């Protein structure tokens, strides 16, 4: 019942395969990056601060939340709330990176831990899609992460430089690029009826949470509810088979 440890292949081939796999969502990342850069200028971030935050924090939803709190005058900048908001918005990454453990051998864990900095929703999703097919390597994850980082950096800096009001991504349906890609990935991960309960519970919990609670809590709530439901159902099946 345990997942076999995949071969640790740190090859360039895998790196580029990971980058290629993330191209569909990179378009959407860039569209949101430009919007973020434009809003960052209005919020009073300097070009240097935009590059620094995109490069180091590298987390879209946390950066959007930060703009609501940011003030143009340094003296009134709410440092504590900014850090706390980033922590809360990014809590869901606990779930995401936990699933990447099988990618690394025990002796690769220090390197793997450092690589987590480049984990985004996008390259995480592509990598777990690969892992579900018995593939997926650290280099694959890294390739997608580097592509996402470059896209995010280039687009947020461009948005800050342009600084003018540009179209909302929803105008061209680009907001749906994430959703469509992740939906296709999810469908590709279907392994049988055992997936029905966790996916349904996750979807229903996420929809309810998204309506009731501000922010990105719905991902964490749906993810925990769905995965626990899946594990409970699987244990009950195992027990039923044994008796």
């Amino acid at each position, binding site marked *: *019942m*345990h997942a076999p440890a995949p071969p640790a292949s740190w090859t360039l081939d895998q790196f580029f395969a990971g980058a290629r796999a993330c191209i*569909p969502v990179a378009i959407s990342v860039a569209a949101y990056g430009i919007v973020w850069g434009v809003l960052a200028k209005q919020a009073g971030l300097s070009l*240097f*601060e935009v590059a*620094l*935050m995109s490069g180091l924090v*590298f*987390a879209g939803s*946390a950066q959007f939340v930060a703009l609501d709190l940011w003030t143009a005058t*340094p003296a009134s*900048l709410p*440092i504590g709330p*900014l*850090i706390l908001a*980033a922590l809360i918005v*990014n809590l869901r*990454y*606990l*779930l995401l*990176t*936990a*699933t*990447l*453990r099988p990618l690394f051998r025990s002796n690769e864990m220090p390197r793997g*831990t*450092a690589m*987590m*900095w480049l984990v985004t929703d996008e390259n995480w*999703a592509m990598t777990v899609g690969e892992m579900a097919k018995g593939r997926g390597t650290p280099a694959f994850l890294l390739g997608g992460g580097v592509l996402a980082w470059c896209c995010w950096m280039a687009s947020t800096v461009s948005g800050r430089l342009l600084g003018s009001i540009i179209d909302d991504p929803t105008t061209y*349906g680009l*907001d*749906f690029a*994430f*959703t*469509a*890609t*992740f*939906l*296709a990935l*999810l*469908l590709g991960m279907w392994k049988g009826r055992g*997936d029905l309960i*966790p*996916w349904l*519970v*996750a*979807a*229903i919990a*996420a*929809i309810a949470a998204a309506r009731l609670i501000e922010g990105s809590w719905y991902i964490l*709530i*749906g993810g925990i509810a*769905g*995965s*626990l*439901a*899946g*594990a409970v159902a699987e*244990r009950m099946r195992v027990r039923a088979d044994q008796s």
Partner: protein
Amino acid sequence: MLTSPEALFAIAGMAIVTLLVKAGGLLLADRLPRHGFAASWLRHIPGAVLASLVAPAIVTGSAAELLAALATALVFFVTRNLFAAMAAGVAGVYFARLALGI
């Protein structure tokens, strides 16, 4: 204005907590048993998180996203290609919103 010490503190703090959370998930998973309930639970996280990311964006109360999701699923089942499925979803939501006047 380049930056301020306050802004540097804020950005550094945000970066550190983000990295701690991201690394924390991997390190916590390293402590979990590889068999039994914990292993089942970890195995079901990817599907559950993807379903949670996707579901609220599809069930919005408007038919445009539902139609686009159907188009995405259809193209994915026919082509098994992520890029084609993404393009179908984006085109689908664009035209559905135009048609519905959203």
